[in-house]
């Protein structure tokens, strides 16, 4: 039997053994064990090295408050750093490693830091690594990060999945100890929708760790019987292994469920963890209390732990750190540990109680009015030094010391909405003050520590919460239970101690707190940041009160006057992966696919993300090795014959109603009232501040029916804006709008042969000749033998062009039919890159030009802003600053040396001027290589550009330290007269 410190009893399944390793060494434990309890049972006390001084450390606690026993769990890609051994449920094959030590846990080379401690006090980094500044990033920080710190990352992709979800309930009960179970029983029986969540895998809280009886049953048995009843109630959802991590606005709670942390590898399809968002009408916080230590010199040695944890290990897990122990306490509860351990056959050398009038409660030696002032045993406790009431000292041999400085109610969640806890003198602890709306607190979390009071207040809390919701609940019948009062005399640290640990996780000592005070960091928030007290994974659950008490003493104020730091979510650490949930990797966000996507993928199209859309960027042909070859071919073929492009992604908004035309008049700068049915008009949409918001075309299908398009990027925001105008500005206009973006597959057909190609698709009864269907015509037609479709004669490329729309399910069929019909014309299908080249060649503004800082005037469309009507943005577009003579104008640019290229983002500088901001003349917005012209072309905004044609400037790119001489030209590089598109 290698489990040398396994004692009798406990809630472990001894019939089954689980194999695990710690730092490569094999051990055995049982179902019901945590990694911490199994290590203790196997005689392991040393579990980690401290953060800064690399001091050997063991367990301080048995729960989620653990500051010391942080391990790396699992190996390879599943390796997880900073896991608290106390909450790691043991499973067969578990592999754990200690952290922050080299080469081994027992001999850590960085342990030298401990000897250097006089130089490593609070504020050490700030004081030491001040200069030279340049050294910080390259030298100091990497060294510090390597030496200090916690676990390491595998740097591999996490193979597990994480889930998210949403739950609703009448009453959320946080914590399944006696108060939570009594509350759940009461609310569950009343028929309310109840969620009972607890971070532990075994519900019952302290009932599983104590030897008290509830009526005739042991606490643990009562808990399991109660859980069994609750499990049978369909309106109660039990959530073990679930931490309520935060209380958010309006009764919303965050919860992390560790679905598969207790197995080696999650079952197929199962998430590792699930992050829940819980919508509650009421909540009852039954989170219990956390014990706090007393600081004395070298109080961080392995084997020294909280007294309540020592007895939890013995009672629940049948494990002790050693067979000979001592107790150091300032209150009655510490004595319980002695009693329980004695009952388990463990030798209790003495109970050292700081109170001179300490009662004798356990059958062992009592040293009243005494203090533990130091101890020995670097890698594991061997003895303690006690200063007796009379002042003489005594050595006591022991391998474990249980310390109790009293208990702090777990008020954390009550503070998540800025609630401030209040000081309770009798408990020498903070208890809940103002709670978040809808939350009440019961049991130890509210400062009522006895089991009987926990049961009673839990049941009462449930009755009261449900009464608010209209339920008539009856408090569950509860068994009699212990009802001992709290007897405590505050005692935070042994006077004269200096290397006495307050915050073991951050290596903050009594001396550091005093130093902070001496140097003026006296506010608790300053204390925290200067010393790092209360930071990192445990957030000072066992440390904050000690630091606060010492600071109070230093400043001569009371503890409540000194204050308390603000508790923020999360209650315990949450992996980033859980926040990401399913939104990881390729599923980071949903994608939108165009109607021709299947066909495009078959063609080997290269796709580009445009917002959520995946659009074909170009379609490589065999032999093409560079994207420019494909794009140039697509552009040339379109301008020479005909090209097809899927333009479904443009937003389409259906606008109907008797006031539809008037509505459009008001949201577009230009007028729509006189647009004839069967015609399309370009529209310029301004923001109220006069900047251009979006542009698009609007087709009038009937007197009271328009279809308006938006740019792909602005589809959502334009729709939102239109609803704002409709509902908030002109609520009585008769206009109805709805998006139809995805209902129609829309293909652009452009090029001299566009009409000929379309005539093979459009049914013969629809005349689409230039006379019958001129530029800017639109109509409802049929195609391919009777399918309803819409045709718009509009052009983005500057060519004779149409856009044809069919119901989306037929979009795939349509592009195949068009490609087939286009064979005789050598038709190409082009992607967004060719689309961009052609619109730049034509001088059409797009997203680069409609960048939120440009006006109609800047774009050369100032004349479109009608002064005869009210429209959004028209008034403020006339502001002085927006109409100055040297305003930026959109113009074209070509390189003086045609073989040279320039880039978008370049700034224009006059010849001979220094390239600085003061001499800035404007900036280049869009650049492409024009295969038609054989050189690079650009669009850009230039001061007074409209009047500077022919001027030579420099396009300066300070990022690449390059500049190119450019000539100012018309933005319309191709067909400036617009003859092609009217052909």
């Amino acid at each position, binding site marked *: 039997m290698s489990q040398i410190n396994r004692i009798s009893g406990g809630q472990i399944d001894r019939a089954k053994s689980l194999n695990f390793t710690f730092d490569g060494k094999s051990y055995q434990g049982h179902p019901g064990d945590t990694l911490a309890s199994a290590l203790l049972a196997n005689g392991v006390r040393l579990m980690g090295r401290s953060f800064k001084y690399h001091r050997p450390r063991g367990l301080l606690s048995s729960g989620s408050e653990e500051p010391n026993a942080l391990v790396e769990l699992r190996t390879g890609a599943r390796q997880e750093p900073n896991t608290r051994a106390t909450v790691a449920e043991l499973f067969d094959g578990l592999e754990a490693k200690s952290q922050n030590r080299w080469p081994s846990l027992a001999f850590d080379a960085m342990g030298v830091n401990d000897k250097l401690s006089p130089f490593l006090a609070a504020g050490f980094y700030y004081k030491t690594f001040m200069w030279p500044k340049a050294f910080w990033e390259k030298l100091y920080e990497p060294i510090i990060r390597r030496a200090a710190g916690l676990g390491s990352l595998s740097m591999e992709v996490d193979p597990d999945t994480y889930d998210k979800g949403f739950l609703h309930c009448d009453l959320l009960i946080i914590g399944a100890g006696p108060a939570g179970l009594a509350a759940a029983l009461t609310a569950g029986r009343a028929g309310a929708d109840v969620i009972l969540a607890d971070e532990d895998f075994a519900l019952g809280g302290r009932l599983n760790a104590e030897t008290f009886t509830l009526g005739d049953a042991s606490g643990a048995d009562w808990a399991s019987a109660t859980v069994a009843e609750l499990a049978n109630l369909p309106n109660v959802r039990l959530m073990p292994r679930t931490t309520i991590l935060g209380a958010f606005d*309006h009764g919303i709670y965050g919860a992390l469920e560790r679905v598969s942390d207790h197995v080696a590898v999650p079952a197929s399809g199962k998430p590792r963890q699930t992050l829940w968002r819980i919508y509650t009408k009421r909540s009852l916080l039954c989170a219990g209390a956390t014990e706090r230590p007393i600081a004395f010199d070298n109080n961080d040695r392995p084997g020294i732990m909280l007294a309540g944890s020592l007895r939890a290990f013995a009672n629940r897990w049948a494990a002790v750190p050693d067979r000979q122990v001592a107790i150091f306490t300032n209150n009655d509860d510490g004595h319980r540990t002695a009693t329980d351990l004695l009952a388990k056959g463990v030798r209790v050398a003495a109970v050292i109680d700081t109170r001179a009038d300490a009662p004798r409660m356990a059958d062992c030696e009592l040293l009243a009015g005494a203090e533990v002032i130091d101890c020995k045993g670097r890698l594991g406790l061997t003895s303690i030094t006690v200063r007796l009431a009379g002042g003489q000292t005594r050595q006591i041999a022991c391998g474990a010391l249980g310390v109790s400085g009293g208990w702090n109610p777990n008020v954390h969640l009550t503070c998540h909405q800025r609630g401030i806890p209040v000081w309770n003198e009798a408990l020498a602890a903070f208890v809940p003050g103002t709670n978040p709306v809808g939350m009440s607190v019961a049991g130890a979390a509210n400062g009522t520590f006895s089991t009987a009071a926990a049961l009673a207040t839990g049941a009462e809390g449930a009755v009261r919460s449900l009464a608010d919701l209209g339920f008539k609940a009856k408090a569950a019948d509860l068994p009699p239970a212990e009802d001992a009062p709290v007897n405590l005399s505050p005692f935070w640290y042994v006077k004269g101690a200096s290397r006495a640990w307050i915050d073991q996780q951050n290596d903050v000592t009594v001396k550091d707190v005093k130093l902070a005070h001496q140097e003026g960091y006296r506010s608790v928030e300053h204390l925290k940041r200067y010393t790092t007290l209360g930071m990192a994974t445990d957030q000072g659950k066992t440390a904050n009160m000690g630091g606060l008490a010492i600071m109070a003493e230093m400043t001569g104020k009371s503890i409540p006057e000194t204050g308390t730091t603000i508790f923020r979510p999360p209650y315990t650490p949450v992996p980033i992966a859980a926040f990401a949930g399913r939104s990881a990797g390729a599923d980071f966000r949903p994608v939108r696919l165009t109607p021709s996507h299947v066909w495009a993928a078959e063609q080997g199209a290269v796709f580009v993300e445009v917002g959520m859309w995946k659009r074909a960027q170009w379609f490589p042909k065999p032999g093409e090795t560079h994207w420019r070859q494909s794009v140039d071919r697509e552009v040339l073929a379109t301008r020479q014959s005909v090209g097809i492009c899927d333009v479904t992604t443009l937003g389409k908004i259906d606008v109907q109603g008797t006031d539809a035309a008037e509505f459009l008049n008001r949201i577009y700068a230009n007028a729509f009232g006189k647009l004839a049915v069967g015609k399309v008009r370009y529209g310029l949409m301004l923001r109220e501040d006069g900047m251009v918001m979006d542009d698009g075309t609007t087709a009038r299908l009937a007197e009271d029916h328009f279809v308006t398009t938006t740019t792909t990027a602005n589809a959502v925001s334009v729709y*939102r804006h239109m*609803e*704002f105008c409709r*509902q908030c500005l002109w*609520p*009585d206009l008769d206009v109805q709008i709805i998006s139809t973006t995805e209902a129609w597959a829309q293909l652009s057909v452009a090029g001299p042969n566009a009409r000929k190609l379309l005539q093979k698709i459009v049914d013969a009864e629809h005349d689409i000749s230039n006379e019958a269907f001129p530029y800017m015509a639109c109509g409802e037609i049929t195609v391919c033998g009777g399918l309803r479709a819409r045709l718009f004669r509009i052009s983005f490329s500057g060519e004779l062009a149409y856009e044809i729309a069919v119901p989306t399910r037929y979009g795939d069929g349509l592009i195949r039919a068009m490609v087939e019909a286009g064979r005789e014309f050598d038709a190409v299908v082009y992607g967004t890159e060719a689309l961009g080249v052609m619109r730049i060649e034509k001088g059409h503004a797009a997203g680069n030009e409609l960048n939120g800082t440009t006006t109609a005037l800047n774009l050369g469309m100032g004349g479109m802003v009608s002064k005869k009507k009210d429209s959004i943005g*028209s008034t403020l577009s006339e502001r002085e600053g927006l109409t100055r003579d040297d305003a930026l104008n959109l113009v074209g640019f070509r390189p003086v040396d045609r073989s040279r290229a320039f880039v978008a983002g370049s700034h224009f500088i006059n010849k001979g001027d220094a390239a600085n901001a003061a001499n800035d003349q404007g900036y280049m917005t869009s650049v492409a290589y024009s295969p038609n012209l054989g050189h690079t072309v650009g669009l850009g905004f230039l001061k007074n550009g409209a009047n500077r044609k022919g001027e030579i400037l420099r396009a300066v790119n300070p990022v690449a330290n390059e500049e190119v001489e450019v000539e100012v030209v018309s933005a319309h590089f191709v067909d400036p007269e617009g003859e092609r598109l009217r052909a």
Partner: protein
Amino acid sequence: MIINHPLLGPRDSQEFTYLGDASLIDRPDWQAEDAVDRFYDYLYERENPAGEHRELWFHEQGDRSWLVVTRNTLTHEITNVELARDVARARGRGK
């Protein structure tokens, strides 16, 4: 946060998009003598109250209603939720 939609009951604020001060409903008269000044004030001059604030929210992932939500900026307490269209009409907006 939870917004108690006048038609749909309590809904998670994640379904909504926030715009800002409800005074954006009170768009000035474009034909007023001092229209530019009025529009300037309308667009840029905002109260930033520490306390009750009437603000516009759009139920984008819902019924597409614009709502006027009265929210305490200190506590997030929401004391009133109205359809913006009703508010606009009550403030004299029409066609």
